[in-house]
């Protein structure tokens, strides 16, 4: 498309656009915080800035933003990129190479990497431009659904860690793709399913053609030798379809019988077998009706329906597998001689491990020396980094951001917090009782009724006209073979799941919608789910002029509260960016900071620290208490030893939370908050969104959350909504786990449903949609049963012929398809 190249499309960030959208990040389109608005193209975070710089340096920027613009759905901002600055040294270990790097050709090798954060066409484009960025890379292919990049490279020129660093630089953190065995098995399964459909489809089409000749013959007459020829043709074509692709249903029915249960496969298998055996008998005997077309088309349609349903929720990635992948497999152990890279398994308690800046922590332990800040987002979904120093506990899977740490090992491998959480997730995912799906429950009674009616038919016709008894019973079994019944659920589910995916709610299991049928308890995590998960200025008392002085001092701090001030008072900052000079700003750790602004000493920080050296007016004490009671973080501002201003910070409740919760309650769900945060904070949030105090459970550890959920499961269905790895096990244990927008990827892996747009409204939408889907399933089942009733009546009275059966069956399936497409609910 050269015309588009000739007139280069301006990347969002070029001057013309910047005037209009001054607040949108030039890379991802998110709102730019005021502190970062000074330079020309504004970026919302250092991550986006770094990615944009790499794109520019490689000359990829214009095309990338072009693809992004053309394919972006609506005005949803892209997920912000987050380069992690990890070294990925573990990817060069011989152990990793032996397991993951496979030879592609004589000179080239191939590796599969799991990429976090790929989600759109522009991501595909960027990942596949890797050969242009890195010499030695021959090719790069991204499978968006599975989030797996397959990179072909020359191992003599480039190392796997360099590939990973380059992809990370684009903003897609890399995880070694574990579970290659499971994935290969899934791939084989997919291919086998498609092969079966292709084979069954070809046979169904051809048998249908031959059968049309037979129908013609039935009306207009046909020479016996032609009729015999066509019948034998049908028989010879249908046998391979029945024994090949059709075996799926036979095996399913046998398996269900052996397990003592009933499954939709049973009535299908009975119908198929009756049609096959009866037809073969009549063909050999040269008399009576044959129903090969019905058998062949049934096999094809049912296989296609099941494949559609499976495909609708394909994106599931193995949760436990990803969790384990968060912690590296090797560590740098310090011993007498120096540093040695060893595998995690060889570490013992009290070993010393070095963690360089940019590396993830390999173990749980206590900081021995060094001070740094950690990115906990993988573990908790929390965005603000936490500072750590000697004596503090740190956990595997978190990321060391700023400086070298030496950590004394307390636990490694499976015993770490992440390892235990992974086991919990696995355990609960396994233990969850499968629900008996509506269609399968119906199948049990259906089989019983059909067999009884068949028996009655045989007996009745044996008395009336013995020659037709068996033929009529066979006809009954084949026309009641529940094609539409078998399609009813898969079609309704795949339409609902497809629509909700377009609306930003990804449903991973076919039975999820049915699990949501009965209302029960609904637990919400607080941070990041009910609230925005960001620290904001919520209350301010003090003279307006003071704001500028506060900003001047806070400009010297990288503390999240400083950013809170800057975000809230952007207007002041823009009006007089550097009007107020600040001298000798000194930070006092977590307590606060002080410095001279406009000739006066300014001290901003925690009440305790500020009051050490300042007098407070009478209002200050009660004001601080009131803020603490509401679960906020109070900050005092003192000028020359007198408290003159006060600010309160907190995590704001999402704008749509109250309305969404009201919708959930209206559906009959009992909504509660289950959070790891301090109980007072949880109570305060509960008050704001209207959750009664007895349903606000604060201070819950991940283990306590699981316990709560499993306990409530005794009383009915439980839905858990959360975003962090600390919620993962509870998400897996619940009847349905819902991961919200922006959550840790591992939590999304453990959830049955995850939401790709912010807010709680999608959760309420999901419940609406589940209701609509269930109504459609019921309608479909009723429609197909009605067709079966008509067919059965005709068969019992001996009035059915193959061509009537051939019309009834596709007609019933079409009705079900239209009914599924027309289902209600917001899309």
């Amino acid at each position, binding site marked *: 498309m050269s015309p588009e190249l000739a007139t280069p499309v301006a990347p969002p960030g070029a001057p013309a656009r910047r005037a209009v959208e001054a607040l949108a990040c030039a890379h991802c389109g998110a709102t730019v915080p005021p502190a970062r608005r000074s330079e020309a193209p504004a970026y919302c975070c250092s991550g986006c800035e770094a990615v944009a710089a790499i794109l520019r340096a490689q000359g990829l920027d214009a095309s990338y933003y072009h693809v992004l613009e053309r394919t972006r759905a609506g005005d949803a901002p892209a997920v912000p990129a987050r380069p992690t600055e990890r070294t990925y040294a573990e990817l060069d270990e011989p152990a990793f190479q032996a397991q993951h790097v496979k030879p592609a050709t004589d000179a080239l090798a191939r590796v599969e990497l799991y990429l976090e954060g790929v989600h759109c066409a522009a991501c*595909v484009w960027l990942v596949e431009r890797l050969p242009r960025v890195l010499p030695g890379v021959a090719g790069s292919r991204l499978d968006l659904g599975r989030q797996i990049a397959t990179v072909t490279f020359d191992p003599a020129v480039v190392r796997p860690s360099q590939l990973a660093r380059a992809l990370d630089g684009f903003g897609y953190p890399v995880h070694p793709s574990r579970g290659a065995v499971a994935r290969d098995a899934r791939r084989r399964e997919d291919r086998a399913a*498609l*092969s079966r459909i292709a084979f069954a489809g*070809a046979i169904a089409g051809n048998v249908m053609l031959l059968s049309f000749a037979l129908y013609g013959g039935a009306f207009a007459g046909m020479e016996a030798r032609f009729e015999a020829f066509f019948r034998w043709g049908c028989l010879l074509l249908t046998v391979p379809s029945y024994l090949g692709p059709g075996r799926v249903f036979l095996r399913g029915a046998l398996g269900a019988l052996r397990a003592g249960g009933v499954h939709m496969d049973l009535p299908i298998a009975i119908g198929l077998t009756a049609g096959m055996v009866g037809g073969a008998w009549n063909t050999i005997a040269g008399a009576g009706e044959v129903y090969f077309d019905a058998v062949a088309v049934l096999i094809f349609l049912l296989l296609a329906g099941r494949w559609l349903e499976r495909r609708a929720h394909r994106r599931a990635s193995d949760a436990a597998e990803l969790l384990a992948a968060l912690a590296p497999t090797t560590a740098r152990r310090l011993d007498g001689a120096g540093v040695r890279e060893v595998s995690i398994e060889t570490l013992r308690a009290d070993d010393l491990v070095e963690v360089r800046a940019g590396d993830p922590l390999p173990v749980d332990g206590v900081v021995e020396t060094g001070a740094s800040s950690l990115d906990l987002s993988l573990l908790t979904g929390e965005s603000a980094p936490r500072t750590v120093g000697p004596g503090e506990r740190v956990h595997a899977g978190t990321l060391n951001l700023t400086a070298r740490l030496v950590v004394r090992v307390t636990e490694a491998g499976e015993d770490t917090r992440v390892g235990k959480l992974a086991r919990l997730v696995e355990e609960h995912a396994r233990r969850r009782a499968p629900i008996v799906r509506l269609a399968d429950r119906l199948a049990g009674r259906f089989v019983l009724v059909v067999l009884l009616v068949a028996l009655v038919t045989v007996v009745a016709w044996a008395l009336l006209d013995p020659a037709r008894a068996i033929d009529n019973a066979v006809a009954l079994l084949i026309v009641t073979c529940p094609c539409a019944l078998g399609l009813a659920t898969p079609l309704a589910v795949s339409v609902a799941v497809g629509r909700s995916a377009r609306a930003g709610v990804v449903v991973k299991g076919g039975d999820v919608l049915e699990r949501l049928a009965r209302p029960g308890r609904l637990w919400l995590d607080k941070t990041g789910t009910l609230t925005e998960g960001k620290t904001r200025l919520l209350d301010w008392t003090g003279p307006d002029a003071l704001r500028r002085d506060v900003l001047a001092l806070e400009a010297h701090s990288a503390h999240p509260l400083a950013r809170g001030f800057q975000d809230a008072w952007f207007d002041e900052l823009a009006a007089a960016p550097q009007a107020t000079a600040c001298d000798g700003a000194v930070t006092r750790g977590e307590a606060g900071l002080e410095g001279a602004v406009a000739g006066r000493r300014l001290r901003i920080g925690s009440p305790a620290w500020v009051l050490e050296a300042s007098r407070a007016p009478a209002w200050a004490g009660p004001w601080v208490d009131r803020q603490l009671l509401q679960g906020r973080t109070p900050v005092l501002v003192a000028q020359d030893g007198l408290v003159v201003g006060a600010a309160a910070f907190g995590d704001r409740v999402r704008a749509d939370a109250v309305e969404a919760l009201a919708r959930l309650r209206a559906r009959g769900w009992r909504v509660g908050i289950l959070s790891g945060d301090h109980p007072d904070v949880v109570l305060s949030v509960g008050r704001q969104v209207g959750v009664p105090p007895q349903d606000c459970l604060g201070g819950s550890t991940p283990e306590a959350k699981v316990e709560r959920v499993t306990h409530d499961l005794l009383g009915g269905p439980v839905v858990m909504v959360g975003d962090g790895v600390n919620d993962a096990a509870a998400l897996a244990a619940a009847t349905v786990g819902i991961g919200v927008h922006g959550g840790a990827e591992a939590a999304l892996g453990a959830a049955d449903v995850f939401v790709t747009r912010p807010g709680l409204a999608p959760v309420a939408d999901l419940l609406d949609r589940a209701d609509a889907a269930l109504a459609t399933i019921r309608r479909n089942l009723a429609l197909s049963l009605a067709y079966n009733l008509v067919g059965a009546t005709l068969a019992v009275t001996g009035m059915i012929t193959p061509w009537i059966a051939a019309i009834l069956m596709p007609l019933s399936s079409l009705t079900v398809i239209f009914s599924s497409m027309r289902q209600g609910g917001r899309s």
Partner: protein
Amino acid sequence: MNVIFVMLPLALALAGLFVFLCLRAINAGQYDDLDTPALRAVFDDDEAA
């Protein structure tokens, strides 16, 4: 009409050939990823330049 005894097996043999080719394409992995190729269509061919 006797020609049908020859034509039908011939037609079926042809259908069989296509089924075989389709199965081969499936097992070569051409249908493994059904989402990403659709997106590649929107990329401009800037590599060629």
